[in-house]
């Protein structure tokens, strides 16, 4: 029985009856394979880094210098230790500068793993080191060579310090998460840190205390730390430090990756859903073609059981071959996703594990079981009498039941992809709601169009009437197409329009640069430099970082802190007499005269979040020193203004003893230099600034926007790639839906032609039908996309929403062109086969 199954299947394939089922299945598997291969390899790459992520067995992290009791315990246990300080700083060489990620390390670093260095851009010889750079040396990442136009042996300036570049960093054990949005790495000795003068009270520095030793001592240290933590649970002592073990570092990343993978797979699920729909429709047609064959075989004495077996064998072959093909194509297309992600990901990508392949195989087989099999299920039970009485009804599974099986299959897949029932229910729920809305809107359009047809020329009427007459089918096509097109338009819109529009909406006087980390004693001189360079600035603000520790005398417990973002992290404080521009008082009073005691003003959202009102006494801690002040006013802040903004503003005087750094925003004339390459983009004042005041940091707004745009570009390009595959699934739905009415159309058109309709009229009617279908699909897609973009602009970007005429143009245009071309291509037999032959084919 087995050989003949393959033969029959091969003949069905050659006869074109399996094209749609197979291509839908291949596409579904391909989408899922590409996405999960990509996710898996990235995940593995990141995880591999984690194993030596810490460059130690334990790492204590803190925003302030590690306190002595933690060091003492490590010493007592005889652990090896090393110190790190991480921060961003301008580094420069000659006229070039770059905002680098500086890592100052003690000589014992790394305790675990090795730093891989090279002396050559060509990465000829690699050398492995288990110690950090010596005093006076700097090791740098290769891209800094281009950015600063330097080579090995050149000097670079970091703060007030000149360091000699001695090696290139190829790899470091604790490189981080692998996302390279930050500046290029510069590694220096921690002993040089004081001389650089980069560490100031207000600077944002991450401290790390690395430890390693034998398992017992490490365990003891962990227990000691945990005990200490437990004891402090209800105290108000600030939690400055966090112990990171390889396990909890991995856990965090694993969590993030799990979410990312689920997101990607869920977007792929839309493809699976559409492919499933196409498969179900195509299988139904395939089944009706097989009916005679099965009846004949049964008349010849084949038993129900053997036909059922044969059916399974055939479906198994279809599933296997398509799945393998889909996996192959998925493997190829995951390289495209990797290519897109390359710029933001800086990890070695190991080979994928088994899971993506398992995901692919399961997807393939679940699709066959959930979408194809239900439509074919009744075949083996067809009565042999059918060979004599063709009017016997076939006991096709009810539409409702097939739908239910399909939905359950999808649910099983999404649940398996996301590993969360709620996520998958929400996702499918949202998707079906979207479908429902699209269907409702589409129905209204169809009604409208139907009325339109009654007064138009003959073939127009014919085409439009067809649209309405087969409205069930029309709706399936519309919904499948318009939702995918909508998502594609949204993603493309995000990529091409949104950032540009946001940038265009920035006020004329939006600053071009931010200047921060300017020391007290440098401020006057810097102001002079800026004035000489003819750039204007917004007011200067002194800035310190601190946090809230008590409200009305009641200490904020760690428990409470963890509930509110505004409480758990350090925020920026300033002091000023005048209400900053783009701030508005919403409650209380801005000072008109010096207050009697210490008073401050707070930003609206933070105030609401932590639940404080005018008159409340709040205690702050700035670098461990505490101050108490009364809340005098609450402000709303227009973050859009791009001016330096602060959560907490004191009346002048309160912060004097904390040695604040100064910040300001600079408005330089727009750089006319079109070639904004790495070397040629600097406003003239910047190089002057950083050379004279090397510890100050200059951040160019254009840079920041460019970086955001780059990330958005890559994410959306990746999504576009996936959605493009999904769109092909949508095209398959179109094909399959045309197939459902194919024989009927063939007969109708044959009759029309024998009655004397010209070929022109028939082509015209078909073209009108598909073009209108495309126009409606495009219109719905554009409406939906515009609505989604409106929401994003209003709520995410906080900007005035805009119309996007190009989106409507592209949406409707591509809908009309795509559907007309595909539809006519699919219907070409209807047009070309002579009427006599098509009449004969059907009977």
């Amino acid at each position, binding site marked *: *029985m087995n050989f003949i199954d393959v033969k029959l299947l091969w003949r069905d394939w050659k006869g074109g009856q399996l094209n749609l089922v197979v291509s839908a299945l291949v596409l579904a598997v391909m989408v899922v394979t590409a996405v999960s291969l990509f996710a898996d390899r990235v995940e593995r790459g990141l995880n591999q880094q984690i194993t030596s992520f810490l460059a130690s067995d334990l790492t204590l992290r803190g925003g302030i210098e590690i306190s002595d009791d933690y060091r003492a315990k490590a010493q007592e246990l005889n652990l090896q230790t090393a110190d790190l300080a991480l921060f961003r700083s301008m580094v420069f060489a000659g006229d070039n500068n770059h905002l680098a990620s500086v890592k100052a390390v003690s000589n014992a670093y790394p305790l675990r793993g090795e730093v891989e260095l090279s002396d050559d851009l060509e990465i000829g010889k690699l050398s492995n080191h288990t110690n950090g750079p010596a005093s006076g040396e700097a090791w740098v990442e290769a891209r800094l060579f281009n950015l600063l136009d330097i080579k090995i042996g050149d000097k670079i300036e970091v703060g007030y310090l000149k360091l000699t570049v001695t090696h290139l960093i190829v790899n470091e054990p604790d490189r981080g998460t692998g996302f390279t949005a930050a500046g290029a790495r510069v590694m220096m000795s921690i002993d040089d840190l004081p001389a650089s003068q980069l560490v100031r009270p207000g600077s944002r520095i991450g401290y790390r205390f690395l430890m390693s030793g034998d398992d017992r001592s490490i365990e003891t240290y962990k227990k000691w730390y945990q005990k200490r933590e437990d004891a402090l649970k209800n105290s108000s002592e600030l939690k400055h430090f966090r112990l990171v073990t390889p396990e909890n570092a991995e856990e965090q990343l694993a969590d993030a990756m799990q979410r990312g993978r689920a997101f990607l797979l869920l977007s792929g699920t839309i493809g699976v859903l559409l492919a499933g729909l196409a498969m179900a429709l195509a299988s139904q047609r395939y089944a009706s073609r097989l009916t005679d064959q099965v009846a004949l075989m049964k008349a*010849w004495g084949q038993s*129900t059981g053997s036909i059922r077996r044969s059916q399974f064998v055939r479906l198994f072959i279809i599933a296997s071959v398509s799945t393998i093909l889909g996996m192959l194509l998925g493997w190829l297309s995951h390289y495209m996703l990797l290519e897109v992600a390359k710029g933001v990901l800086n990890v070695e990508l190991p080979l994928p594990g088994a899971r993506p392949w398992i995901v692919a195989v399961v997807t393939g087989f679940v699709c066959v079981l959930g979408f194809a099999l239900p439509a074919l299920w009744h075949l083996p039970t067809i009565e*042999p*009498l059918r060979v004599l009485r*063709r009017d016997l009804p076939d006991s096709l599974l009810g539409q409702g039941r097939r739908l239910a099986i399909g939905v359950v299959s999808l649910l099983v897949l999404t649940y398996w992809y996301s590993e969360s029932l709620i996520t998958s229910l929400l996702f499918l729920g949202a998707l079906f709601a979207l479908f429902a809305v699209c269907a409702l809107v589409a129905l209204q359009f169809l009604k409208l169009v139907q009325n339109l047809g009654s007064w138009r020329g003959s073939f127009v009427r014919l085409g439009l009437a067809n649209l309405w007459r087969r409205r069930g089918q029309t709706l399936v096509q519309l919904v499948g197409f318009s939702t995918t097109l909508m998502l594609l338009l949204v993603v493309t819109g995000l990529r091409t329009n949104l950032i540009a529009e946001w940038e265009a909406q920035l006020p004329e006087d939006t600053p071009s640069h931010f200047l921060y980390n300017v020391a007290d004693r440098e401020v006057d001189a810097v102001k002079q430099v800026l004035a000489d360079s003819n750039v204007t600035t917004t007011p200067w603000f002194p800035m310190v970082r601190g946090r809230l520790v008590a409200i009305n005398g009641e200490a904020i417990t760690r428990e409470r802190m963890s509930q509110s973002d505004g409480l758990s992290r350090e925020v920026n404080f300033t002091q000023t007499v005048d209400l900053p521009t783009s701030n508005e008082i919403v409650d209380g009073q801005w000072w008109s005269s010096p207050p009697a005691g210490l008073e401050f003003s707070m930003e609206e959202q933070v105030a609401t979040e932590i639940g404080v009102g005018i008159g409340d006494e709040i205690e702050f801690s700035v670098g461990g020193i505490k101050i108490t002040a009364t809340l005098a006013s609450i402000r709303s802040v227009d973050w859009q203004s791009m001016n330096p903004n602060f959560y907490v503003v004191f009346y002048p005087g309160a912060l004097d003893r904390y040695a604040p750094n100064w910040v300001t925003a600079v408005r330089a004339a727009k750089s006319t230099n079109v070639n904004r390459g790495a070397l040629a983009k600097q406003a003239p004042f910047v190089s002057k600034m950083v050379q004279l005041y090397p510890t100050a940091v200059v951040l160019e707004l254009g840079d920041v926007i460019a970086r955001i745009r780059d990330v958005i570009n890559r994410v959306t390009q990746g999504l576009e790639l996936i959605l493009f595959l999904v769109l092909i699934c949508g095209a398959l739905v179109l094909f399959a839906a045309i197939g459902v009415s194919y024989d009927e159309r063939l007969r109708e058109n044959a009759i029309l032609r024998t009655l004397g309709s010209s070929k022109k009229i028939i082509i015209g009617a078909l073209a009108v039908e598909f073009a209108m279908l495309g126009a409606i699909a495009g219109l719905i897609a554009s409406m939906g996309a515009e609505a989604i973009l409106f929401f994003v602009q209003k709520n995410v970007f906080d900007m005035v929403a805009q119309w996007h005429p190009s989106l409507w143009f592209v949406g409707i245009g591509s809908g009309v062109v795509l559907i007309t071309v595909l539809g006519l291509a699919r219907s070409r037999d209807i047009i070309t086969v002579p009427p006599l032959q098509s009449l004969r084919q059907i009977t």
Partner: protein
Amino acid sequence: MTQSILRAQGVSKRVRTADHDLTILDDVSLDIKLGQSVAIIGPSGAGKSTLLGLLAGLDTPTDGEIWMGEHQITATNEEGRAAIRAKMVGFVFQTFQLLGSLTALENVSLPMELSGQRDARQRATEYLAKVGLAERLSHYPKQLSGGEQQRVALARAFACSPKILFADEPTGNLDQATGLKISDLLFDLNRQSDTTLVLVTHEQRLAERCESIITIDDGRLLSQVTS
């Protein structure tokens, strides 16, 4: 007396329709001998096809018994009947019932392949030559005329060497001249293979070529005349 191959005893078929019970066949008894050719004739709607279906074991009667050789096909279930059909029965239909996705050769060899016959292709080629289609082996049904299609169907039926061949209006869809050629071929092949032939037709001329004529009307057997 020759052995009987097909025997019906008091066979009735009633179906329940929306408002009343409909009797399609009423108490039909008949006996067909091995190697005999029998025509079932009668006006349209008389129940000829229904009787053929029952005799071939494609359907079960409401009352009565049917024997095919030593098997009582009314006493077994569909699986059992399928096994008996596989062993003994072949069909030719009014609408040819060729599979559109298969070539002429494939159409003829399929039933033999299904029953696991080794030399299926060889036999199929041989029988297609017998029906005069040696040159058309790789043609698909839609490339063949109606008469040619029915010849493929005849080749398909006889290649399996069935004990009994059931033919429901084999010339019904063909013009007179072609129909005549097909019936010549049918009787030729039948003679060569000693097959028992049960033929439904309403063409008197075709019926007269059979050794025995069974006439039914309105579900009742009027006569069985053996010449």
